[in-house]
């Protein structure tokens, strides 16, 4: 049996569609097997995968903008840090308390804020991030201000603690896979279809019977819970939290990961987080020109793959179409 060129082409495209996510997963597997410094880099990449997957639900699926997701990561992180380091709660219970607190805050903040649209919503969410940052700095009796909170225990249940780098990385990989799987299930559910619909046209979505306001708020709360989980994981892996760690740089990094990986795609957050995490390491040899090369690489990716690396098949398809000779038209 022979394969026609069309079959080969469709197989190639299917392979290219999954290649970036497989490569990113391969990098995680390599880090688990190899150990060493790369474990730390990939570990942070996996924490960001969860954070960006949440951002993707609100921005990629529902088409809204939020510059304030760091606020929810901060609530989760500080709740875990304070409850475990100061009050001696077990990490799991503290994490659950942080998630519940974050969901309540997201509801209280999102209910009035999500009446806004476009730039106004972006500015309002930016303000939320700045306010929470200031709270972390000023509420010294609880957060210890700029000095931060240290001595946060590692993740674990009872006497079992995730102390080795490799065990932590495996746990983070499981959490990242679960978060992406939940995101995929959500996108292919009735709720997910409704989110993508309202991102296309709120009026058309309303006319189909979709309660746009309620759905936007739910997406906002879900993305805040993702951020809270990533914040919690972060403090228990690093063992320390300070306001600088949950500032605007976190938002900028997450946006870069989301767009480089592929906004609106399920695997984009993983791809973006691993690529952006490893990019500085892989261009370290450029020494003084490192930042220049980093910036140029990002620009090139966004110019040639505007849908992100997850849409590599589309980039190749476009390239092949450009290179293919134009068909002759019969007179």
């Amino acid at each position, binding site marked *: 049996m022979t394969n026609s060129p069309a079959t080969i082409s469709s197989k190639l495209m299917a392979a290219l569609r999954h290649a970036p996510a497989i490569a990113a997963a391969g990098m995680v597997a390599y880090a688990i097997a190899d150990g060493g410094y790369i474990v730390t880099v990939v570990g942070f990449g996996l924490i960001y995968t969860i954070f960006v997957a949440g951002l993707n639900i609100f921005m990629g699926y529902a088409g809204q903008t939020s510059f304030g997701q760091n606020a929810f990561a901060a609530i989760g992180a500080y709740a875990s840090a304070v409850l475990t380091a100061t009050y001696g709660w077990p990490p799991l219970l503290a994490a659950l308390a942080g998630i519940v607190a974050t969901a309540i805050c997201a509801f209280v903040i999102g209910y009035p804020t999500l009446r806004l649209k476009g730039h106004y919503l972006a500015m309002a969410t930016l303000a939320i991030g700045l306010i929470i940052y200031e709270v972390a700095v000023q509420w010294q009796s609880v957060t210890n201000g700029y000095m931060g909170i240290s001595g946060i225990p590692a993740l674990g249940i009872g006497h079992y603690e995730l102390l080795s780098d490799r065990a932590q990385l495996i746990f983070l990989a499981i959490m990242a896979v679960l978060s992406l799987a939940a995101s995929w299930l959500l996108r292919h559910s009735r709720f997910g279809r409704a989110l993508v619909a309202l991102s296309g046209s709120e009026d058309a979505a*309303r006319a189909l019977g979709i309660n746009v306001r309620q759905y936007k708020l739910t997406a906002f709360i879900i993305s805040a819970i993702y951020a809270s989980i990533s914040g919690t994981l972060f403090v228990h892996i690093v063992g320390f939290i300070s306001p600088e760690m949950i500032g605007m740089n976190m938002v900028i990094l997450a946006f870069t990961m989301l767009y480089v990986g592929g906004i609106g795609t399920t695997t984009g957050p993983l791809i973006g987080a691993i690529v952006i995490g490893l990019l500085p390491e892989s261009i370290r040899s450029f020494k003084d020109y490192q930042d220049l090369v980093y910036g140029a690489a990002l620009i090139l990716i966004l110019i040639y793959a505007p849908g992100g690396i997850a849409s590599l098949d589309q980039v190749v398809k476009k390239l092949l179409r450009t290179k293919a000779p134009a068909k002759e038209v019969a007179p």
Partner: protein
Amino acid sequence: MSITTGNILEVRGLTARYGEVTALRSADLDLKEGELIAVLGPNGAGKSTLMRSIVGLTSASGDVRFRGELLPRNAAAVAARGIALVPEGRGIFGPMSVEENLQLGAYMINGRGEDYERRLSRVLTLFPRLKERLSQAAGSMSGGEQQMLAVGRALMADPKLLLLDEPSLGLAPKVTAEILETLAELNRSGLSVLLVEQKAPLALKIASRAYVVVNGRISTEIDTKEITSHDQLARYYFQ
């Protein structure tokens, strides 16, 4: 309170404003069960505002009754009563597949189950071209196919009343004729249809009555059988 009149839709004194501008002034309109009527008028006359106000997408004062019941001023609640709108510009969801768009049309029944399959089969029989493109991204289809999808998606809600806002917009005459013929067929099968259309001669071919909207007011109600020439129609626009 329910008032039985044999009308599926009754609009009384509907007035809509955009800031200081009154786009629709005290509009009255009746649509009988199983009837297909047209709303005609020049560009910017207020036809789309009338449509959006009926389904609750634009806030307006006045009464809209569906089968005698006062309609809420909330689009999602209006859709739940069995009123489907095909919006101006189609409003299809481009990045989603044709099938996902159709599933969203059946949002009220969760886009699955026996009822869903029955509705899907009906839509694909009406528009066989959609069947060939179920997995294709809706945004990559031609304008005519997108309009078929928009109508098909509205039909997936199994509506009692179908509202269409300028379905001929940007389409080739042949495709427009095909879509209007499908609407006429749907109407013959008992579906009530309210059609907003700028291309009056096309709409008059399938509608039994028409309302002419000029400067935000419904100026005239006409029996389409009485219209025999373009000049006669033009007089209604400029009276």
